[in-house]
């Protein structure tokens, strides 16, 4: 099962500079475990004590995973996952 994961600039040191990588998992937590197996150290930048880090946003098909079950959010083949740092919006 292939899910495309878009990686922000700040975390590309873990992915050899790749903007986008493929990973697998039936939930976000499984996906992050697979990412960690491929790119050691990445999981710790995303997750802390079993939940997403405060300044990390992850979206499944452009929807914020915090409203989809968080780390347990379900994934299906062909989903797009986007990781972004939380930044101040326009105002």
């Amino acid at each position, binding site marked *: 099962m292939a899910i495309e994961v878009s990686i*922000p*600039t*700040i975390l590309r040191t873990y992915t050899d500079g790749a903007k986008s990588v493929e990973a697998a998992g039936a939930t976000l937590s499984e996906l992050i475990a697979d990412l960690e197996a491929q790119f050691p150290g990445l999981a710790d*930048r995303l997750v802390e004590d079993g939940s997403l*880090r*405060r*300044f*990390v*946003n992850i*979206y499944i098909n*452009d*929807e*914020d995973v*915090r*409203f*989809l079950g968080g780390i347990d959010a379900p994934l299906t083949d062909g989903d797009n996952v*986007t990781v*972004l*740092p*939380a*930044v*101040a*919006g*326009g*105002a």
Partner: protein
Amino acid sequence: MRYDCLLDSVGHTPLIGLPNLSPSKDVRLWAKLEDRNPTGSVKDRAALAMIEAAEADGSLTPGCTILEPTSGNTGISLAMAARLKGYKLICVMPENTSPERSQLLRMWGAEIISSPAAGGSNEAVRVAKQVAAENPDWVMLYQYGNPANAQAHYRTTGPELLQDLPTITHFVAGLGTTGTLMGCGRFLREKVPGISIVAAEPRYGELVYGLRNLDEGFVPELYDPSILTTRFSVGPLDAVRRTRELLELEGIFAGISTGAILHAALGVAAKAANAGEKADVAFIVCDGGWKYLSTGAYEGTLEEAEAALDGQLWA
């Protein structure tokens, strides 16, 4: 409508039905035209409320200097109010904002401190906090954490929506300071059981997410995720596409952030229509398109517009 002065005319904006964009007679879209405020954006509400709150608690006194990080609209609203009320305004604004915004700010008499493009509004907030620490007699209203911002929408925008659309089922707005969503959301949740409160946040180009480390990330102090039903990230291609559709199908000339909000609104409307539910989806038109004409969003193909917006703070 007659008002004694411009500041009294903030709010009371029209709610316009969108028969051509609505999926069906049972699922209707409604646009709240916040560009009809005195300086042309929804930010007039928060700016005036923050100034009045600071006057009331004594932190803002005649002749004071106000300092504020802004990507444009809040600064423009504050500049107008500051001019009429006799305050000096200094805005910290990222340099990757359209020139219309700095021209308007200067016309209303504001001074601009530029913050670096990389990091976007994050940098503006950081620089403003630094400048505030160096100038303790200046008053930073700080829209990202000022309860008067959300309170303005709890007190005015929310009640206006409910009065004009008692059958409202969904409210969709942009997520910047989070003030509109927190204030309207809190009000509507109290009055309308089961209402959906939906956030649309702009997804910018990579430059804007250029933090040195993740600990420099930022979540506005006003943000309370328990108010929201869900939250969508909308990129420039969808935002521009919807901005153009709003003009072509309904005649409304809006800014690019409104296109991002409409994209999310159309998503929840389609979902309701597919489920066979009745829905009245109201969303915020934050401002008109005038201040963004120079960005390239309004001419050429969608792909050309997307490329032109890369690296710009378009919402």
